[in-house]
């Protein structure tokens, strides 16, 4: 005879089972080799989220989100110069927050004006820590996912778990990563994630998904779209050797994937294109940064280069032609299939380097984040890429702090806590901004030139390493 258990006992039994299962998962998680670095890294990130921000960019993002929530697209009201994905991700979350009655504050604080006029980069408009945390939550998710992707990618590439852990740590504890996402609040981590994921799918020969990944990245900032051009050519070349039909089919899969996200956001994409062509192009200028234009941080040299900006802009239109360099070299060097994952990574680095040197007028430090994950992954195969990774991380971090000193990130801390005061920050920033330089008028201009030149050196070294590796592989492949 079957004895039936009472209902309350059944519930208790299920509850107990669920608890045991949770405990089991938790114990497994704690035993995982990434548990400790993950935990420390997450705590570090949560601590930085509410009180640090690069004032200038967050105001632009706030205004964009604010207009979207008021039923305007961010381009028709000229408040954003970035493609739409960040707003598509962020706005429903923010709307949900507002709908449940949580009030976000955003106000003008005239007391920050003194430092603002010294550097012209500190805004007088600040949001409360809640908005900063909300803004950084998507960045945190993509940052975490990118760390896991680097771990998995490296493990797949090297079949070595300790190398994968090392790669994860290089990402998760890189000061440049922490500064960019949690102090600056830039969303380049999303671009970096989709780019690396696109390469991961490419290596797994999942071309459609690879295309979608590059497409999503391109909807965040345009660079993944531009890097997808040579990659498309390489895919075609790879298959054209055996079958033209397969080559067309594969490239079509990749291209279709690339286009799908843009089709989903088509109306905003059209408005974005219109705004970029009518408004932003009139405001282009070279202001220094982390590529060959580093010297333009000096106002006199900047003036000289910007008086020829329209000639320089014509060179930028040559990018599609220049992006064929990796495609042609792939076709010339590789007659038969080799270590496709490694070669793909090398060509993607080459494509990014061409992009850095040709396209952006001012290579801002956060742009270097696009290439950092690829350098970490490739470093586990070829140690010399650690130099490029280190140079880029150091140069970009130092550049961030050189522009207007580290104090510039701390205004929310001063405005919303009693840990420091706005006057202290103003004084420190004004003192720093007015300190005379050695070969420019101000020290900050000198420092920007030095760290910009350091990053440019990093670009040259990366190019050298890639070309050296490719020619070595090319020589080895010859009969």
């Amino acid at each position, binding site marked *: 005879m079957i004895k039936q258990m009472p209902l309350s006992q059944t519930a208790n039994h299920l509850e107990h089972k669920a608890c045991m299962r949770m405990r089991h*998962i938790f114990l*497994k*998680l704690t035993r*995982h080799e*990434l548990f400790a670095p993950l935990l420390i890294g997450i705590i570090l990130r949560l601590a930085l989220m509410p009180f640090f921000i690069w*004032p*200038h960019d967050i*105001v*632009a993002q706030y205004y964009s989100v*604010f*207009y979207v*929530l*008021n*039923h305007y697209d961010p381009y028709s*009201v*000229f*408040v954003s110069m970035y493609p739409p994905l960040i707003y*598509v*991700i962020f*706005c*429903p979350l923010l*709307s949900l927050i*507002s*709908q449940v*009655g949580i009030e*976000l*504050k*955003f106000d*003008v604080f*005239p007391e920050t*004006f003194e430092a*603002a*006029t010294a550097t*012209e*980069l*500190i805004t*007088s*408009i600040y949001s409360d820590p809640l908005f900063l945390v909300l803004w950084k939550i998507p960045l945190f998710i993509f940052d975490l*996912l990118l760390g*896991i*992707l680097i771990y*998995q990618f490296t*493990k797949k590439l090297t079949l070595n778990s300790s190398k*994968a852990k090392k790669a994860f740590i290089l990402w998760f504890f890189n000061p440049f990563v922490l500064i960019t996402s949690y102090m600056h609040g830039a969303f380049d981590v999303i671009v970096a994630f989709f780019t690396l*994921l696109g390469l*991961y*799918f490419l290596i797994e020969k999942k071309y459609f*998904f690879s295309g*979608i*990944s590059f497409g*999503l990245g391109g909807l965040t900032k345009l660079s993944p779209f531009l890097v997808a051009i040579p990659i498309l050519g390489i895919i075609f070349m790879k298959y054209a050797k055996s079958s033209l039909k397969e080559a067309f089919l594969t490239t079509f899969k990749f291209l279709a994937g690339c286009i*799908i*996200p843009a089709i*989903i*956001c088509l*109306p905003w994409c059209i408005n974005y294109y219109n705004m970029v062509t009518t*408004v932003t192009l*009139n*405001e282009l*200028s070279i202001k220094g940064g982390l590529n060959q234009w580093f010297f333009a941080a000096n106002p006199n040299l900047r003036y000289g280069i910007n008086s020829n900006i329209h000639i320089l802009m014509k060179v930028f239109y040559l990018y599609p032609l220049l992006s064929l360099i990796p495609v042609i070299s792939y076709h010339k060097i590789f007659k038969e299939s080799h270590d496709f994952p490694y070669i793909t990574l090398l060509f993607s680095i080459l494509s990014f380097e061409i992009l850095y040197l040709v396209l952006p007028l001012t290579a801002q430090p956060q742009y270097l984040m696009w290439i950092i994950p690829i350098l970490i992954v490739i470093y586990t195969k070829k140690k010399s890429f650690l130099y490029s990774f280190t140079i880029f991380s150091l140069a970009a971090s130092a550049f961030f702090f050189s522009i207007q000193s580290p104090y510039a990130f701390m205004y929310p801390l001063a405005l919303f806590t009693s840990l420091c005061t706005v006057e202290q920050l103003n004084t420190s920033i004004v003192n720093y901004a007015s300190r005379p330089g050695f070969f420019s008028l101000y020290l900050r201009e000198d420092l920007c030139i030095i760290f910009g030149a350091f990053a440019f050196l990093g670009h040259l070294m990366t190019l050298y390493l890639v070309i050296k590796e490719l020619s070595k592989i090319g020589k080895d492949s010859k009969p």
Partner: protein
Amino acid sequence: MVKIASLNWRHLIIFMIIYVLGSQTVLYFSPIIYTNAKFSINNYEFKNELFSVNFTLYASMPLDVKVALIPVIEEPTNLPIYIFYDPNYPALGTSWEKIHMLGTNLRRELPLRSFKGDVTLITAEELEKLLSKKEKAIVIIASGAFPANVFPAYNYSRDNDLVKPWLDAGGILIWFGRPPGYYTVYKGQIETPHFCELPQHLRVDGVKAFGLEEIIEIKPYERVLKTAEKSSYIGEVLDINYNLINYGALNDSLSENGLAIGMMGGNPPRSSVSIIPIGKGKIILFGFFVLGSYILNGPELSARDIAQIIRSGVIYSTKDSPPTCKEYHLLGGQTITDKVEVKIKSNIKGVIVYVYPTLSSTCLLYFYKFYEEPLSK
């Protein structure tokens, strides 16, 4: 082994596509996601030199809003707005990039307030045509100097001056920078360290051409930015944020002829923004230049201030019938019904009801309506 290191990235991509698709669909077709704010007038009345309006306010999300009543001596029209933008000329003490950004931001701020006039960037040649035709318009010059084809250089002669006759005929000039008329620039010139010392500039004589020599304190170029801290009454009504007073109009002179509408401060006391009548026209004088993006006095907030001044109708207000204003803070889903009133004198043609969100509001609500005083017909 926990599955942390073997996430299925294809599932993530599919999730992302679904999220993006869902988010775009919701953003396009669902009203729930957006803020919803309404302002409606229940009734209004002109009685015994008093205009009163009863209204209802509603917002689905938290809203900070001001309801202003502005008595005016004529009904404002949607005048075309022209911004002088010609990089062939030097922008003294500022940059054309900032002026371009001012124009871009104005193209957002004015349509938000249902302003129907066009905002156009014009070159020096186009400016010359406009002024010589004495077209009734609003012209913004934020580059700190007149181009030599519209205002004389070397010696002041009425024959070469297109600006003053245009102002006399009813033109409205919005001016940023050093005093109007002080500097004149030629096409193709480049700003050098000693550019301001060139003999081509009329200096005080140029300022005198507009009768502003008593209104603006003429002094050598200052590098230090001078700011005002206290808001004027109209500045508070319109939430004007521009606070530079280096070349702001002197309060004493404004008390005789003109209106302080910005922030007040300095010694002698000056106004950061003021309206100065000239002939049938007006100069709206900002105390200095437009500064960098997103900072106080930058192109975004300056454009907002200009839009507030143009749309509120304050250009046509008078000292004896000052505007009135009330601020409201609504919680999400709250409805408020209230009454606001303003005193009006016999010279008033009507009253503008102007509703706008304060800078800290995450919900947008603009309302503009002109009510004509029945006795003025």
